[in-house]
């Protein structure tokens, strides 16, 4: 599964995109929990879950949206364009 990170999530994870084995994670929240358990950089990046937004296969989603079968999951902070 392709996982994307933007803005300070990208900086803290240290990557804009990664191929990640979801290891059976069923939701975005579940995937984050597995990543945080795996490496400290994820625990740092996802320390404030209230500031984390999710898109699954380029559709805006929430942390409890199912990700089984998804090709791409993106994590990013609230948007600040305009």
């Amino acid at each position, binding site marked *: 599964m392709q996982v994307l990170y933007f*803005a300070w999530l*990208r900086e803290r994870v240290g990557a804009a995109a990664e191929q990640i084995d979801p290891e059976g994670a069923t939701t975005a929240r579940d995937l984050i929990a597995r990543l945080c358990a795996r490496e400290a950089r994820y625990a740092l990046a996802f320390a404030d879950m209230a500031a984390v937004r999710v898109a699954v296969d380029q559709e805006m989603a929430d942390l409890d949206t199912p990700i089984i079968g998804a090709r791409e999951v993106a994590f990013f902070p609230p948007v*600040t364009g305009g």
Partner: protein
Amino acid sequence: MADAGGAKVSVQREDFDIGAEIDRLTRGNRDIGAVVSFTGLVRERAAAGAIAAMELEHWPGMTEKALAAIVAEAEARWPLDAVRVIHRVGPLAPGARIVLVLAASRHRAAAFEAAEFLMDYLKTRAPFWKKEHGPEGGRWVDARDADDTAAARWQPKG
């Protein structure tokens, strides 16, 4: 309902020419009575003090899709003759133009409302992130509650 041709949405590093964009939008359509433009500029004084530069990050591909969806929603809500959205990305100096929204209609109420709607939705739904660079380093801009409040007024009540 369609404009005379050309893209409705652009995400680009280059600056834009407001007058030329308005001309392109209105040329050949003499039913248009009202054109509203919104231009966003980089402010030198930010929440954390003076900034030397701003960096606009976005999500290529998804950004254009999000902006096109916002434009389609505006066209469904108001009788618009033409719409245009340009958003810049990359490094921007204080005073630089960031975003342009244009809405053209027969009468001014629709043009004003659509332009405000486009900006409110762009601010809360299009995947752009601003990082300010100042004397104390880089700082990601926080989302503003006021922007969520502004966007919420376009939702159905109740």
